[in-house]
């Protein structure tokens, strides 16, 4: 049983179950799946300053703060307590690429050699966390959503602006993965 719970899932199990979050939130209370709005919520709660965009009643929408606290717990249970002991089964092409980047794959879901507190002080670590995070937070608010709000919820509700946003996400991601990421691991 424990072994079974440790196993990662193929896309055709994980994908539909991720999709079910959309009706689950709608039925529980008319909530639209979206995560990046929690960054705005935290800004509004902690440092609203005199910015009108951050001055609203964030407590009214605090369901999403509980929701992301749940995501943290889900990640803890599935990725720590019942973590898969095997490395991620990436494609042969990806393994080759990781070798070129001098990344040794351990059992974790991220390369531990880069995502740790010690590497945070290296320029690569700063790009992977501080710069990457800043772009994610700035871009998602400017684009009014992330992969869940646009990519899953927006597309599920057949909204064309979300399709354009999702294409923009991928354009940025493909460019960054091919032109910037390789420079970090030369």
């Amino acid at each position, binding site marked *: 049983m424990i072994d079974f719970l440790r196993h990662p*899932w193929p896309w055709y199990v994980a994908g539909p179950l991720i999709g079910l979050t959309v009706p689950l939130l709608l039925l529980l209370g008319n909530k639209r799946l979206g995560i990046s709005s929690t*960054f705005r919520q935290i800004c509004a709660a902690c440092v609203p300053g005199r910015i009108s965009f951050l001055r609203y009643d964030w407590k009214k929408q605090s369901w999403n703060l509980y929701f992301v606290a*749940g995501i943290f717990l889900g*990640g803890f*249970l599935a990725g720590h307590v019942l973590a898969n002991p095997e490395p991620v089964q990436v494609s042969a092409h990806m393994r080759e690429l990781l070798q070129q980047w001098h990344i040794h794959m351990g059992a974790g879901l991220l390369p531990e050699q880069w995502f740790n507190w010690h590497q945070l002080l290296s320029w690569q670590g700063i790009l992977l966390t501080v710069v*990457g*995070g800043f772009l994610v937070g700035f871009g998602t608010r400017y684009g009014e959503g*992330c*992969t869940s709000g646009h990519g899953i919820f927006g597309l599920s509700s057949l909204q064309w602006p979300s399709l354009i946003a999702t294409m923009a996400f991928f354009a940025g991601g493909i460019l*960054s993965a091919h032109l910037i990421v390789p420079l970090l691991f030369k």
Partner: protein
Amino acid sequence: MAETATTTTPRIQPGSTRRKALPNWVFLFPGIYFGWVLTKGEAISWYRIEEMFYFGSFHMYGIFMSAVVVGALSIWLIRKLGIKTWDGETIEIPKKRFHKGYILGGFIFGLGWALTGACPGPLYAQVGAGFTVVIVTLLSAIAGTWVYAAWRDKLPH
């Protein structure tokens, strides 16, 4: 005293099925579910995200597409059958209004996505999975949102 108490007791109205709205904390539970399935599907993996951007595997595309199909079918069913929320509200989906930020902001988010190997949801799950340094990524994302809020009037929309 006993008399007034009995007269003020609210009676259950026949035909009224309206319940109270769920309190916000209840959404911790769908959150745990979402975090669990994202993690078990390896959608929070930096390796899987890079692999996706290099078109190395169908895994992430399969996740996205099947999630959207299930989401779309559920919304279609909800509308078709007129299903209401737990507390009897009509389900509403506000229209998204397009502006230039969808392209510019979306592109900027994409640039960051390939670096962090995670979009916002998975960032929270990565911290839970034990990569505590990702707290810095989250704080930086919050800072990014703050800077957007401060510059909002000067950016093209």
